[in-house]
C-alpha cells in the first residue's frame, strides 16, 4: 500500500486502486493523486485489509493471482461496505457479471480523463439514495453487457431479461423519490438512467 504523497485535505475522497500489475497501479495512482487521497493494493488479499468505510471509490482489476477481483467485489457487497466500485479490467464483460454489483465497468486500456471522470461520477452517487445506487449498478451492468454483445445475443439470454425487468421495477420506485430532487447532476444522472435503453443506444453493438 502506498499513501498518496499529496493528500492535503482530510475531506478529500479516498480512492483504492486494486491492480496486480504494479506499474499500472502506480500509473493510475499518478493520474488520481492530485485530486484524491489514493491508496494502492497489488493483490486481492492486500486489498481486503483496506476495504472499509474510509474508502469512497475502489478500482478493481478482475483477474489477479490468488484472490481475484471478482472475489474482492463479492466480499465488499457481502459485508455491505458502502463503497462505490468500478471494475477496470482487460476482461470483457460476459453474462457472469450480472449480480456482481459494480457501479461501473471500464475495459482496458483507459486514459487519465476516462478514469478521472468515472471516479468523479461515482463520488456523486455516494451522496444519493440507496435506490438510485442500485439503479445505477443495474444500469452499469446492462451497459457493460450491451457494449460487448449484439442485440440478438442479449435477447436470447434470460438473465438479461431479468436484469431489464429489475431495472424497470427499481426505476418506478425511484420515480417517486426523484421528483423531490432538483439538484442538476442528479437530474442529469436520472435522465441517463431513464433513457438508457438497448433499443435507443449501442447500435454499434448490434451490427458487430
Amino acid at each position, binding site marked *: 500500500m502506498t499513501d498518496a504523497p499529496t493528500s492535503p485535505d482530510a475531506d478529500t475522497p479516498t480512492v483504492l486502486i486494486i491492480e496486480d*500489475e504494479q*506499474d*499500472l497501479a502506480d*500509473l493510475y495512482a*499518478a*493520474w488520481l493523486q492530485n485530486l484524491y487521497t489514493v491508496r494502492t493494493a497489488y493483490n486481492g488479499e492486500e486489498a481486503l485489509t483496506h476495504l472499509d468505510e474510509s474508502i469512497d471509490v475502489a478500482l478493481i482489476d478482475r*483477474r*489477479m*493471482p*490468488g484472490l481475484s477481483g471478482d472475489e474482492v467485489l463479492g466480499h465488499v457487497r457481502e459485508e455491505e461496505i458502502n463503497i462505490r466500485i468500478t471494475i477496470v479490467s*482487460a*476482461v470483457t464483460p460476459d453474462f457472469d457479471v450480472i449480480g456482481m454489483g459494480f457501479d461501473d465497468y471500464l*475495459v*482496458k*486500456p*483507459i*486514459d*487519465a480523463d476516462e478514469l478521472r471522470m468515472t471516479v468523479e461520477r461515482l463520488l456523486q452517487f455516494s451522496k444519493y439514495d440507496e435506490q438510485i445506487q442500485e439503479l445505477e449498478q443495474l444500469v452499469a451492468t446492462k451497459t457493460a453487457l450491451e457494449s460487448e454483445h449484439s442485440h440478438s445475443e442479449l435477447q436470447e439470454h434470460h438473465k438479461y431479461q431479468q436484469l431489464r425487468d429489475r431495472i424497470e421495477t427499481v426505476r418506478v420506485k425511484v420515480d417517486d423519490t426523484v421528483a423531490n430532487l432538483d439538484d442538476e447532476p442528479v437530474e442529469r444522472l436520472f435522465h441517463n438512467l431513464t433513457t438508457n435503453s438497448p433499443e435507443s443506444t449501442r447500435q454499434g453493438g448490434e451490427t458487430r
Partner: protein
Amino acid sequence: MPLSSLRERSIRWRVGGHLLLILLLIVVNLGSIGWFLTEQKHDGAAINEAGKQRLLVEQMASEAHLVGMGNMGARADLAADAAQFNRTLTALLDGNQSRGIPPAPPAVRDQFLSVRAEWEPFYIHIRIILEEPRTSTEFNESLQYIAAHNDQLLAASDTAVSHYERTFEKKVTQLQFLLVGIFGLDLLVIPLLFAFTDRHILQPIEQMAAEARTIASGDMDASITPIETTDEVGDLSKSLNEMKTQLVSAAQDAQRFEQAVEHAGHAIYITGTDGTIEYVNPAFEEITKYDADEAVGENPRILNSGQQSESYYDELWDTITSGGVWREEVINKRATGELFHAYQTIAPITGVDSDRAGFVAIMSDNTEQIISNQQNQVLRRVLRHNLRTELNLIGGYVQKLRNPSDDETRDAYVTKVENRIESLVSLSTSVDRFARTFKQGPHWQQELGATIDNVCDALEDRYSAAKFEINTPSSEVTVLANVALVCEEIVENAIEHNDRATPEVTVTVTVEDEPDPPPTVRIEIEDNGPGIPSEERQVIEHGEETPLLHGSGLGLWISYWMVTLAGGDITIEDRQQRGTRISIVLPRASVNTVPDVAVGGQNGHTAANDQTEDINNTTND
C-alpha cells in the same frame, strides 16, 4: 392334338387332361375285360343250353317209344320235354334275358333255323302222339316219323352246337386281340404323357431349382433362364427373375451402404441389444487404435477413459434403451492409453420385424479441434489481457511524455515505454512458440531417455550455473506425448524461479512394471527452489488458466493438457527439506493395453524414434 395349343393351357388343365385320359384308358380296359367276360358267360350259357337240347331229343325219342309201348305215364314227361325244347330253341334263336341267353349270332342263327325246320314237323308228331289215341293211324305214323327223324334232329342240333362253339372260339380270339390292342395303347399313351410332363413341367422346374440354388449360394452373377410360356412354369420363371433382380438391387444397396460405412471418416460401430460390439469400421480402428478383431465381442466400455461419471453411462443406456438418440461430447481412451475428445451419437436400430436389433454409434475424433479451440481461447485471453494491460501502460506513459516536467522524467518514461514494448515482443514470441508446438500434435511419439537427455543438454547450455542430475532407464521407453515440451517447461520453470546460487534439478525416469494396466512410466522432476506458488499449482493440477503475465503459466498449462491427453497424470508435492517434486505418470506406448497387438506396438516404436529426432531438432532450434 397340336402341342402349341396345349402349351398355352395351364398346368392344372394339362395335368387334369392327363388324368382324365388315364381314367378313360382304365375305363376302356375294365369295360372291355368286363364285356369279354360277359360275352363269354352268355355264349357259354347258350352253348350249354344247346348241348342240353341234344339230351332232350334223345329223351323225347325214348319217351315217345315208351308211349308207343303203351306207357301212358311217359306222356307227361314227353309233353314237358317237348315244351322245354321248344322254349329253349326260341330262346336260343331270339335270346332270353332271364336265362342269360343272347340271341343267336348271325353266323349260328341259320343253324338253329335248320334245327327249327327239323323240329317243327317233329313237334307236330309229338303232339299227335300226346293227343291221339294209341290205336289211331296218326299215332302210329307219328311214332314212326319220330323214330325215323330222331337222328336228323340230333344231327341238326349237333351241327348247331358245334357251329356255335366254333363261332364262340373265333369271337374269343377277336376279343383277346382287342384287349391286347388296348393294353398296347396304354403302354404307348402313359410314357407319352410322362415324357410330356417331364419335358414341359419337371425339366424347367429342375432347371430353375438348380439356378436358384446357385444364386442362393451367393453367386449373384448367375442368371435364371427365362421360360417364355404363359403357364405356371412361365409365371414361376418370371417371378424368379424378378426376385433375382430385386435381390441383386438389394444386395447392391447393402453393398453401397457397407462401402459407405467402411469408408466413412467417422468411427462407426454396431452393438447388439446387450451392448456387445458386433461391427467396427476402419475409421474406428484408426481412431481408437483397437483392431476390429479386438473390439468385436467387447463392450464399448473399453473406450471408457474414467473422465465421465458412472451416471453418464447409466443415463446413456437409459436414453438409448428407451428408443432415444444419445448425442454427447465425451472423452474416450484409445487402446494405447491416450485420451481423445469424441463427439458421438448412439441410436437404437430396429430389425425388419421392428424388434430392437441393437445400436449404432458414430464417433468423431475432435481432439485436435478441441485442443486447438482451447488453446486459441487461452491464447486469445492471455494475449488480450496482456496486450490491453501493456497498452494501458504505454498509453499512460505517452500521455506523461507529452508534457515532461524535465529531461530526467522524460528519459525515465521513455525507458518505461521501451520496457513495455520489449515485454510485448516477448509475449508475442511466447505465444508463437506454443501455437507452433500444438500444430505438431496431437500424435506425438517420443522415446523418453533420448528426449530428456536432449532437453536437459540444451538447458544446461543455457543455465551454466544450474546442476543437473538425469536418471533415465537403459531400456527404450516410448510415450505418446510431447515429453520434450513438458520437460523443458517444467525444468526451465524450476531453474528460472530458483533463488539458490546453484539451482539443482533432478530428473528421474522409472519404468513401472507393476501393473495394473496399462503399463506406465513415471517421470519425477525435483528441484531445490522455493516451491511453486499456489496459483501456478492450480494450473498444473487442474488445468486452470490464470492471467499470468509472463507466459510461464502458459507453459505449465500446456504441460497439464499434454499429460492429460496422453492419458497420464501430473502431481506436485513439496519435498521434505526444500523444493518441489513434480511427478508425471504416462502410459507406455511400446506396450499396448491389449496384449495381442504386440506387433503393431513394435512398429509404432520404430516410428517413434524417428519422430523424436524431428521434434527435438525443432525444439532445439
